[in-house]
Every structure is written in C-alpha cells, then in structure tokens.
C-alpha cells in the first residue's frame, strides 16, 4: 500500500469511528428537547472557569514533562507548549497522531532522540491512565447510582494500564536485563534490523531512566493526579452551564469515562467519541439525554478551543524558526558562487539590511544620568558621553531583559508623572535626584532591580569619562581627588 493510501485509510477509519459514535450519541436524543437544552444553557461565566482550570492543568502537565526529561533545561513555558502542541495536533489530526507531533516537538526542543521522546509520552499515558482510574474508582464509590458498566470499565482499564505498568517498572528497575532480553530477541536479525531495534530499546531504557529516582516518582505521580483533578475541575465548572448541580463525583465520572473513551483513535478533535462517552456518563446518573449531550458539546468546545489556539501559536512559533532555518539551509545549498572569503569560494545566499546604528541618548536618558551624577556642575561632556553609552548599552540588552526594562521604565515615568504632575525630565535637578535615589536605593524591590543595570552602567560610563579623569593617559597618574558626586 502506498504511503498516501495508508494515510487515507487511517483518516477514513477515524471518520468512520467518529460517524459511528455521533450516531450512538444522537440516536436516543429528542431534537426538541436538545434545542430547549441549548436555549436554556448559560455558558458564561462557567465555561471561562472551566477553560482556566483546564489550561492550568496543561501547565502542570508541562511541569510533569520537565520531571520526566531531567537535564535538558526545558523551561516550564516551553514544556507546557510542547504538551499543548500534542493536544492541539490531536485536535486537528486524526487517529491521535498528535502524540507523534508532540514527541517530535520534544525531541526538537531538547535534543533527545524521538524514540526516547515517545517513551516519555508512553510513560505519561500510563500515568494518566492510572490517575484517571484512581479518580474513577474514588468517584464511583461516592456516586448515588453505580453505572452497570463501571466494574467492567475499571477491570479492562486496570488490565491494560497495569500490564504496561509492569513492563515499564521492568524497564525502570532492570534496564540492563531489558537490554539483554532485547539483544537476545533481536540477535538473530540482520544488522540492518538489529541495530535500529537495539537503538530503540536503549532509548526506551533512557526514556524511563528518570523514574529510577524514588522522589521523582512521587513527584511525577503527584503531578499526574493533580493534572486529572484539574481536568475534573473543568467538567465540574461546566455542570452549572446546563443547569446541573455541580457534584465532584459526577464531574470525575464524566472526566474519567470521556478520557478513557477517547483513547479510541478517531477523527480530529475526538468528535463523536467525546460526545458519546461524556453524555453516557451523565445519563448513567439520571441526567436526560438532551441535557447530557448539550453538556458534552459545551465541554468539548472548552476542551477544544483554548488548547488549539495555544497549540497553533506554539506550533507557528516553533515552526517559523525551524522553517526559516530549513529554508535558509536550502537556499544556501542552491546558492551561486561569487567571490571569495580567505581565498575560498563563497556562494551568495542573500543580502540582509544593515545593522541599526548604536542607539542615541534621549532627553530622558540624559536626565537619568544627571540624576545619578549629583554634582552641582558636572562636566557637560561627561554627562553626554555617559548618556550616550548608557542608551547604547541598554539597547543591547537581550530582548527579554530589554522588554522588561522598557516596561519598567515606562511604569516609572507614569508613577513620576502621577506623583508630581510633570514628566521626569521636567522636574528640577534636585527632585530628580531625590526620585532616583528613592527608587534605585529605596525599599521597593522592583524599582531597585529595575535601576540595577542603570546605576552600574551610568556610573561606569561617567567615571570612565576623560573629562572626569583628564590626566588618565598622561604619565603621572598618581592618587588624586575626584569630583565628589552626591551628598555624602
């Protein structure tokens, strides 16, 4: 079967599964009752709370991912974005192909092998399954009506996740034994197959390795439970949107059944399975079919939209950079020869605009410098030179710090204007000095931090100025008094 045909087959199977579950979800729903259910629904503000809860859950998932790939310096935002990319991809790709996208994103961001990243995903899924199962068991023990299918669901889930867990524990606890077994199993194959399979086995062992640390296992397990408690929170917050009383056990039941149900690979966004399993959970507790389907639809929107938006932004962000580099590398390979660099032929790939000239000092920069250099008659050249240096240096800060500096200084200027009714530059020299001293050396920590690079850069530049040290490069650089700045 060609690759395109196999892809089409996957998509077709997903669509058929979706169609089947949509049919199952709708078959006992009265159309009029469903319309009434929609009309009486009050999505706001409940769905906002639900979405917030779900997004916090994604950040906790990011924290868990960081625990599972130690030593890679993965930031929390990046880790959360990788998680969300996987979910968003599942929302737009069929058959849970988002899991592969997520593993690829993790491998790309951290440098670990894709098989290792897939192992990490597998570990997460096993923990997810067990956490859902735990919540489901707790919830079902508190429910007034025990669904007839619940014991069967629990047994099947325990068998599936339990079996995988045993394999995982084996890989974590006895990696050498696992590799030996793999080596024996693959030993008779030709090197063409044996080597890649052994590579996969080694990466599986590496992917599971972080769980050898007991304290990490506890943290990972705790975050897994927290993730699903937060997800149950989403289901809980959505209950009042269709006029149902929020019951934690009912929300946990809906969450558990829905998430186990959507493990079935289907169409993008789990349309069909999500609605069927979610509504069935509520129906088992006596909720009318139409209300249950309305609820399932609203929760699905809450589940689908924010994560897809976040994921698309993250994918664009990652993808644009990768795409730009790939395009550049591609262009480079096709470039024509033109001139030489150090006697080696250079191929021109393109041209870029000139770098911006060094930033010039603004009136505000000069005023700031004057406020630090608190002499009655400071040399004008030194002030101007220090201000120019200061402005140039601040513009060269890395963008994250530069952005913080701009935001902080804007806030400072607004505060000054509100306090004195005039701009910082329009204040008298004495007042400016007092303001700067209060902010740069006072008790308000954010301002102290904001002024930290300002004070050091300004003072360095001012005291390096030749007008302050006229004899600097002359031969006699003996001890001499410098102009006193400030009022000691």
């Amino acid at each position: 079967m060609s690759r395109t045909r196999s892809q089409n087959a996957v998509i077709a199977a997903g669509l058929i599964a979706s169609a089947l579950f949509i049919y199952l979800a709708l078959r006992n729903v009265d159309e009029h009752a469903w319309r009434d259910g929609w009309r009486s629904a009050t999505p706001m503000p409940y769905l906002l709370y639900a979405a917030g809860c779900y997004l916090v859950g994604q950040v906790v998932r990011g924290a868990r991912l960081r625990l599972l790939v130690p030593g890679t310096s993965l930031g929390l935002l990046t880790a959360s974005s990788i998680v969300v990319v996987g979910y968003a991809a599942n929302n737009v790709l069929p058959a849970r192909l988002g899991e592969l996208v997520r593993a690829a994103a993790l491998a790309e961001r951290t440098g670990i092998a894709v098989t290792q990243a897939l192992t990490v995903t597998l570990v997460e899924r096993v923990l997810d399954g067990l956490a859902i199962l735990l919540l489901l068991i707790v919830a079902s023990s508190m429910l007034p009506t025990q669904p007839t299918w619940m014991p069967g669901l629990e047994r099947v889930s325990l068998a599936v996740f339990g079996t995988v867990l045993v394999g995982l524990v084996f890989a974590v606890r006895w990696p050498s034994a696992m590799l030996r077994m793999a080596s024996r199993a693959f030993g008779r194959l030709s090197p063409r197959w044996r080597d890649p399979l052994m590579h996969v086995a080694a990466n599986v062992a590496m992917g599971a390795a972080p769980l050898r640390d007991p304290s990490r296992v506890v943290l990972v397990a705790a975050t897994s439970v927290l993730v699903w408690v937060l997800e149950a929170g989403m289901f809980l917050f959505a209950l009042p949107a269709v006029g149902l009383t929020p019951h934690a056990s009912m929300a946990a039941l809906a969450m558990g059944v829905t998430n186990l149900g959507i493990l079935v690979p289907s169409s993008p966004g789990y349309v069909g399975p999500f609605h069927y399993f979610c509504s069935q959970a509520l129906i088992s507790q006596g909720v009318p079919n139409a209300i249950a389907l309305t609820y399932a639809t609203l929760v699905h929107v809450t589940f689908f939209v924010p994560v897809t938006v976040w994921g698309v932004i993250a994918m664009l962000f990652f993808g644009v950079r990768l795409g730009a580099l790939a395009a550049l590398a591609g262009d480079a390979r096709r470039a024509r020869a033109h001139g030489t660099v150090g006697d080696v032929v250079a191929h021109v790939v393109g041209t870029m605009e000139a770098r911006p000239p060094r930033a010039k000092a603004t009136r505000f920069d000069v005023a700031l410098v004057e406020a630090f250099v608190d002499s009655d008659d400071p040399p004008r050249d030194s002030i101007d030179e220090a201000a120019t240096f200061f402005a140039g240096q601040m513009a060269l800060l890395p963008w994250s710090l530069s952005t913080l500096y701009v935001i902080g200084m804007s806030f400072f200027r607004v505060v000054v204007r509100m306090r004195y009714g005039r701009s910082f530059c329009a204040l008298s020299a004495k007042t400016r000095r007092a303001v700067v001293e209060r902010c740069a050396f006072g008790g308000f920590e954010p301002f102290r931090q904001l002024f930290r690079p300002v004070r050091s850069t300004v003072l360095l530049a001012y005291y390096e100025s030749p007008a302050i040290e006229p004899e600097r490069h002359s031969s006699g650089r003996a001890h001499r008094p410098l102009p006193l700045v400030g009022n000691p």
Partner: protein
Amino acid sequence: MKHERAQVLVVGSGAGGATTAHELAHAGLDVLVLEEGARHDLSDYGKRSTQAMAAMYRRSGMTPIVGRVPMGYVEGCCVGGSTEINSGFWHRTPPEVLLRWEAQFDLAQASPEDLAPHMAWAEEQLGVTTRGRPWPKSTEVFARGIEAMGWVAQEVPRTAPGCESSNTCATGCAKGHKQGVSRRVLPEAEAAGARVVEGCRVSLVLHRKHRASGVLVERAREDGTRELLRIDADHVFVCAGPSETPSLLRRSGIKQHVGDTLRVHPMLKVVAHFPEPIDAESSVLPLLQVKEFWPDISLGGAFFTAGHVAMTLSDNWIENRAEMRELGHLGTYYVAVKGTGRGHVRPSLFGETSTLRYDLSHDDLRHLSTGLARLATVLLAAGATCVYPSVAGMPALRSRKEAVRWLDDVLPSGALSLSTVHAFSTCPMGEREDRCAASSFGKLHGFENLYINDASMLPDSPGVNPQGSVMAFARRNAMAFRETMR
C-alpha cells in the same frame, strides 16, 4: 590561490580557535579561520573601558547571565577572543579535576601526563611566567593580609612577560606584553598558511545526515548591508566560545547535550579602603590568589579603574559614594566560587543573541558567603579600614567580627551583584554519549567531520582560570585530528 572549499574551517579565533589553526596549519592543512569581531593592533588597545567594551567585547559587554541571581558576564569578540581582554592568569588543569572528568565523563587520554606537553607548548608560546617581588602595592597589601592569616597563596603565573603594570589587561595591553593569542599564536598560524578573516559571523553550520558541508556566514559590505555567504568545507571546527558555540550548533539543529550544561565561576567583588595609598589604578591587578579554600573558593584581586570601582560601590551608592574621593586608597578584590549550579545557553528567540541562564546553587551561595567572610578578614588583617561588598543593603565591614558573621550566615541572594568572566562546559566532551556532546577529542557525537575545540568542551568547572585547559585540550584534539588525516 582560489580553493573551491576549505579543507579545515575554524569558527572563532580565541584560545581554542587560534590553537587549532596553529596546529593544523603547521601540519600542512589548508586552514580558514572566520572571526566575527575585528582585528586590532596595539594602537587600538589600552583605551578606556567604555571604548574597549564597544570595540572588543561581545555585544559591548551586554551579555548578562539571567537566573534567580542575575550575573554580569563578558567575553571577547575580536581577533584573539577573550585572551585579548582577560587578566592573563594561567593555571594548568588540576590533576584531581582531570581524574574527575575521566571518572564522570569517560574522558579518554586526559591525564596530567597526556596534557603536559600541550601545556608546556602553550606556556612557551605565551611566555607564561611569574613576576616575583617587588609586587605592586595592591598585591603587597594582599600578601600582608595572607601572611597575617597564615593561608596558602601563590603568585599566579601570567601570560604577560615583561608586564609594565599599565593596568590595561581588560582593555587590551597597549604595551604588547600580555600575550593574547593575536600576538604570536595566530601570526604563526598565518605564517604557516592559515587565513584569518575578520568580520565574518557564522550563523549556521550546514550539515546533512552525519556530515557538515560548510557554514553560512554573514559579512558586512561597504554600504553597511550584509551578505549571506555559503562557504564549503571538508572539516569544521566550531571554536566560537562557551556561549556562541552551543548557540550556533543549536541554531543549526544540533542539540544532543548541546548548551544544556553551562557552568561558571560566580564572583563577588569588594572594594577595600586602605590607610596608605595603594594607587591601584596605576598598577597591574593584584597577582596573588588565595588557594587555602580551593577548590570551592578562591580569593584574588580584580581589574581596577574609577568606573569599575564606582560600579562595585553602586549597590550602596548613597552610603559609599564618598569613597570615590579616596580612589588612590582603594583596591578591588574578589571571591570566586567553583560554581555547582546549573545553567544553559540557547539561541535567542528574537535577534541574533544567545540567552545564558545560570541558577546559583545553595552551595554556591554558601561558598560566596564564607568566601566573603574570608576575603574581608584577610583584607582587614592587611590593614584595610573598611571593606565594601557589592551586596545591596549590606553595610561596610569594618571589623573581623563583622566579617566572620558570614561564615555562618548565608548572604541574601536577591541582594547580590555577581559577575563572572569564566564560562564553560556547554558542550561537554567525553565518551559518555548519555551526557556528552562530543567525543574525548572534540568530535561531535553523530558527526564524521564536525568538531568543537574551545571552552565549551570542558566537561565541567575546572575550578581555575580556564585558558590553560582550553589551549592544552585544543592542541591535543587538533593533533589527534591531524593523525586521522594521515
């Protein structure tokens, strides 16, 4: 003669790049060195700090390390790299460090005996020597304190034979005594046929599967615009320094253990006021280092100018600024710690910079605290009347009783103004593929012809000034590469 492709292309001309070029050019290979910064001669050196920063430092010195405690960090960006602007202090890699690297990283053939000939070569090239007494006053008073305390200390050998105390180490030695690699190593490489091209910023290493095919270079044109050029090469050595090497590799899609393990020597400075004139501005920085508390803590003297003193005093400027009247009585000293925290380097999401992050460990903080106590103690024992630490909100230390408090207490991390000039280990080398980016001889794991050969390859903190380690390993690696070419 025009070549279709470089046989060996070296990115960067600092301690690692210059050594690589020297060795390979002398082995008869065709070597092209691409340097982002400019080439300077002695007339450009010895200028004021602000001018030198703009001309010779990466991003004019604005390359801070972010983290819970931000840290000032600078490195060179000119022909010769950081060797042009460092203090010239020289240390051989301590044997216990090499042993640890072998044990933890499976670093092969890196015993003190293996490295000795390469160290000796580098020391001969750079004229490494000690100055001996009489020392400048800022060193003498430090020695006085050390003797009073009975501590182990040494005059650190420097790469500055004939030093005239012009106090321009950090701005380029205008007298030409300090031997940055632009003084002899690079000229000898060029004499052997290497070509060093300045103003070429390598923005991407081009590779396919397991082979690097060349690099993408940005070069400024006369009208200020820049052209992007592809240069093909048989072998590529990335020697762009501890921040730019991982950044370049990661930008190029090479990420396995690249940039994940930044290590630094965090440093806290103090200004000491002595009753007698020290005249530190007219002399070379203090030459002694206290090794009593090594490897966790080292104490020594820092580069001194009025601007740098003001910067160090600026944490408590309102209380301290009167000291600027007494510049001739002041000296600046530091406590540096081994650095056991974790950090990383990433290419910036916007622009062309690198983002460096380092999170101070609790051990770092404790060592800085006890180090400050000991530094203040030794300076007060030397006769200083006052020691001003660069810690916001901390009053000047005027007695040893005040100083020793920090043997037990821990400094408030949010109040510290830290800096460092030693960064390394961002692409550790060793045979352990689960934690190293490159083999024991700098070849990137998974590549046939791509190498690293600068401070980024050191497996972790050497606990001493890293230039000696970098040059010795770079020569050893280059010679190993040469053998494979035969």
